[in-house]
């Protein structure tokens, strides 16, 4: 037995001794003339793995350099792991800097913590990271279209070496970004089931006009913006949103007639849920403020001018069952896996950790107009994880790009959720408004979503009910209930081009104003529409509607266009 161990050690020693550390370092730092860049990148990664497994202390300086500088490529992670395995304490400061660096990928930070543990060092004793701000770019550098130089020479205290620069691309603002220089990924707890952050600016309309013939000035503007964030964790969930809407205008005729107005509406709300299994307790709070200013002078010179302010402060408490998640980003990962599988390039299924890394990378890059860095980062992540078997060819690259730019993967609900809450609020209204004062109400909400047929068919629905409680004497207690059901068929071209969506919907509303002589009212409506996607979250929609309300029939058709871009979502 002892002989066997000695032989094994000797074989191991020979293996370590056989590692050509200088040769591997040279390969990492210099691209051979007879090797193209993708092949060289593969060779660099392989060389780094060999250095990490070499047990040769001469590999430590190179691994430190890679761990410090390769913040995105898998080669950086290989180096961090290798520093832990090599057992050289000189790596401790570098690893501590990585742990303390807020811009670092959480996965790399985790690897650095593990490496420090192997070295017996603390992860929290790291000194503050040095200022690594690069020097300002050379103003005389070539124009945007000029390619970057193949190599950059850096001088150290002991040697002069060449190291490859990252691929660079040009941002919209003219600066240069590396495709692997992904902004810090959103921090999500390990038990996060889904999360999203949405920023929408709706420009609406803005018109200005004046002519000397009528001597008439007119102006109107309608602008709005909203922000929403939600995090769903196993034991709790929270969400918040805020929106502001401004409408203003002026019409100044040549005569005495003049109308001026401004309306500002601001609303904010928050929600928290605490789960025990599928059952949850829920708390909601909402505030609203609206200001209307009107100045109206008619043709006869009669004028009306007033300012009205409306304020809402409300809270609601209750309970519910289930959870409705937006799994659009998860479906994007599934579509990606299908595209790889169809092209025989899927080495293994996309695991949960890689899925999370992909989704958070897309989230971090969501504001980019170009999909270039998303594509490069996605391919790099898939290659690093061993999921993408080789560098993708043109056809597969196109299909991956189609998946990344798929406009039909925003707001894709999955699950069932229903809750019942009691709301208490104070509404500040002008004197002539019947809603002024305290209001108590019972509120019910439900939602359902299912993604079927390889995520190309969506069945979804919502329902609500409200009833005013404890209304003062001679004040009505109106109630209402309603439900919406929708089926959407998403269509794609042969190579995954998102084409459009055909949807069929039905709405039913039942209500009572609870006034003298008023009846229960029922409205049933149906809609058939087709949406043609222009780009991410933007599209043109043609729809036909039929509605019936107390015997009156309404038939209509609509052509609408929407624009939005800034969604970031995650679902485990």
């Amino acid at each position: 037995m002892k002989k066997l161990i000695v032989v094994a050690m000797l074989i191991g020693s020979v293996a370590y001794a056989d590692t050509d550390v200088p040769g591997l370092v040279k390969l990492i730092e210099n691209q051979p003339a007879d090797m193209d860049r993708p092949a060289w990148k593969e060779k660099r990664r392989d060389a780094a793995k060999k250095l990490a497994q070499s047990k040769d202390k001469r590999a430590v300086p190179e691994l430190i350099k890679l761990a410090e500088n390769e913040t995105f490529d898998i080669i950086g992670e290989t180096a961090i792991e290798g520093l832990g395995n090599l057992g050289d304490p000189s790596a401790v400061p570098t690893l501590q800097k990585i742990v303390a660096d807020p811009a670092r990928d959480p996965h790399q930070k985790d690897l650095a913590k593990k490496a420090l543990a192997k070295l017996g060092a603390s992860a929290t004793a790291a000194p503050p990271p040095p200022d690594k701000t690069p020097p300002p770019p050379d103003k005389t550098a070539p124009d945007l279209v000029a390619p970057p130089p193949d190599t950059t020479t850096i001088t150290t205290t002991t040697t002069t070496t060449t190291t490859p620069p990252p691929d660079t691309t040009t941002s919209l603002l003219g600066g240069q970004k590396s495709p692997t220089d992904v902004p810090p990924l959103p921090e999500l707890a390990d038990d996060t089931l889904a999360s999203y952050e949405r920023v929408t600016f709706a420009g609406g309309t803005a018109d200005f006009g004046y002519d000397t013939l009528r001597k008439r000035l007119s102006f109107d503007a309608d602008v709005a913006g909203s922000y929403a964030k939600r995090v769903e964790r196993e034991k709790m969930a929270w969400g918040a949103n805020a929106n502001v809407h401004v409408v203003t205008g002026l019409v100044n005729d040549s005569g005495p007639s003049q109308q001026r107005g401004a309306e500002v509406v601001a609303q904010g709300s928050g929600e928290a849920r605490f789960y025990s299994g599928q059952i949850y307790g829920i708390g909601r709070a909402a505030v609203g403020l609206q200001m209307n200013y009107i100045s109206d002078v008619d043709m006869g010179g009669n004028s009306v001018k007033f300012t009205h302010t409306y304020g809402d402060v409300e809270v609601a408490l209750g309970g519910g069952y289930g959870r409705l998640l937006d799994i659009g980003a998860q479906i994007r990962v599934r579509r990606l896996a299908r595209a790889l599988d169809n092209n025989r390039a899927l080495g293994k299924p996309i695991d949960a950790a890689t899925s999370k890394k992909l989704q958070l990378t897309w989230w971090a890059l969501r504001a980019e107009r170009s999909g270039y860095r998303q594509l490069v980062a996605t391919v790099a992540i898939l290659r690093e994880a061993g999921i993408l078997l080789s560098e993708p060819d043109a056809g597969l690259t196109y299909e991956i790009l189609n998946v990344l730019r798929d406009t039909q993967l925003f707001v894709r609900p999955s699950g069932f959720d229903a809750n019942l809450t009691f709301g208490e609020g104070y509404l500040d209204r002008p004197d002539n408004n019947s809603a002024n004062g305290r209001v108590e109400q019972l509120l019910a909400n439900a939602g359902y979503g299912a993604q079927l047929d390889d995520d190309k068919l969506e069945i979804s629905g919502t329902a609500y009910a409200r009833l005013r409680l404890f209304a003062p004497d001679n004040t009505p207690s109106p109630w209402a209930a309603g439900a919406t059901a929708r089926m959407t068929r998403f269509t794609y071209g042969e190579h995954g081009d998102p084409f459009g969506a055909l949807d069929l919907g039905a709405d039913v509303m039942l209500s009572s104003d609870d006034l003298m002589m008023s009846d229960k009212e029922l409205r049933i409506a149906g809609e058939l529409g087709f949406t043609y996607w222009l780009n991410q979250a933007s599209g043109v929609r043609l729809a036909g509607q039929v509605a019936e309300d107390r015997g009156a029939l309404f038939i209509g058709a609509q052509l609408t266009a929407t624009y939005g871009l800034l969604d970031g979502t995650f679902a485990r």
Partner: protein
Amino acid sequence: MVRRLSFVLLLAACNAGDDTTDGARANCAQGGVLTSCPEAAHTSSGACWRLVDCAAIPLDAMNDFDWKRCVDGIDKLTAERQNLVIDCIAASSCDSLKVEGSPDHPNTNQMSCLLLGDQ
């Protein structure tokens, strides 16, 4: 099609037998910011549907301001006044669209968004 639809509407009004048909109200018609509605279409009919949904006006009334008078009134405005009125109604909360007499006999002189279309 327009003549046919008008006929249907007229028939419906006769069948109702009442002076006023309220129309179904949406979730946001009452209760402040805790209740919400989808955004109204930025058309004259969409704006008037919002007034009905919010319990600000009736769907159909013999002598009062109702959905059809609302649509006709907005359609008669100049383009810039139409924009102002429709955008104002679409952005408003339901309670700010209600006035004295709402929903059956609304005092239109108090409807701030409609005043923007006065001429």
